[in-house]
């Protein structure tokens, strides 16, 4: 017997469907499991960089997904490492472009077998800001 397991299909599709997109859940296909999720804040001083270090406790380099509220209290959560163009109202309008970073890339990140690190760069000359972030670590290898 090879065609067995747990199958839940979307409305209108039979469990004989061979199309993975038609399944709500299937034990045939490995799911993207959330090993760890959470949030935090970090204070980024004016004209400086602050790095959030988030330990994941896994024994491998996991796939990750994260979001950042760059403008404190805005309720606007950017995905990933966000390139910004000019002083950006959605990201705080605090002069992100006022710095010297030619790539205008105020968020950088990397993950290893221990931590996810997100480096936030504040290009404003005199105003600090508190960045809120939310992260997912998945139970699958990222590399």
């Amino acid at each position, binding site marked *: 017997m090879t065609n067995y397991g747990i199958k839940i299909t979307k409305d209108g599709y039979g469990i004989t469907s061979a199309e993975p997109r038609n399944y709500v859940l299937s034990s045939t296909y490995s799911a993207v499991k*959330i090993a760890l999720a959470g949030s935090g804040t970090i204070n980024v001083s004016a004209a400086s960089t602050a790095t959030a270090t988030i330990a994941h406790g*896994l024994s491998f380099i996991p796939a990750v*997904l994260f979001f950042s509220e760059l403008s404190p209290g805005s*309720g*606007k*959560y950017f995905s990933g490492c966000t390139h910004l163009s000019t002083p950006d109202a959605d990201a705080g309008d605090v002069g992100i472009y006022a710095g010297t970073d030619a790539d205008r890339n105020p968020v950088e990140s990397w993950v290893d077998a221990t931590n996810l690190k997100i480096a936030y760069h504040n290009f404003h000359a005199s105003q600090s800001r508190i960045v809120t972030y939310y992260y997912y670590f998945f139970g699958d290898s990222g590399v």
Partner: protein
Amino acid sequence: MTNYGIKVMKAGYSVTNTDIRNLILSSKYTMLKYHSDTTANLTITAGNTSGYVDFTHNLGYVPAFIAYVQHSWHDTIQRMLPFGISAAPLIETAFSTSSIVRCRVNMIERPDNVTFTFRVVIFKDKIA
């Protein structure tokens, strides 16, 4: 009893195996749950340099999402957001709020119209 629930392992692995990567699914771990999967176009006309398109979700909280973009000057290449080309420059970003996911474009002025096709997968999972 703490070790209970549904576990389905990859072939060759026992349910006592503790490596999460060997699990096909487990009731111990949550998964991102689909809310919507929507596509919309944004056309930036000649001489303009920015624009955005909103995807309404009606969830009432800030959800997780994944966004992709396809450019009219490429055939079938779909890129994950955020995406940027420093040399062009072309900067594409996305953020979510309690009512929308917004995909944005900032670019160098072009002499022709260009269309960005955004696909946004919004999850029911709350991030704020």
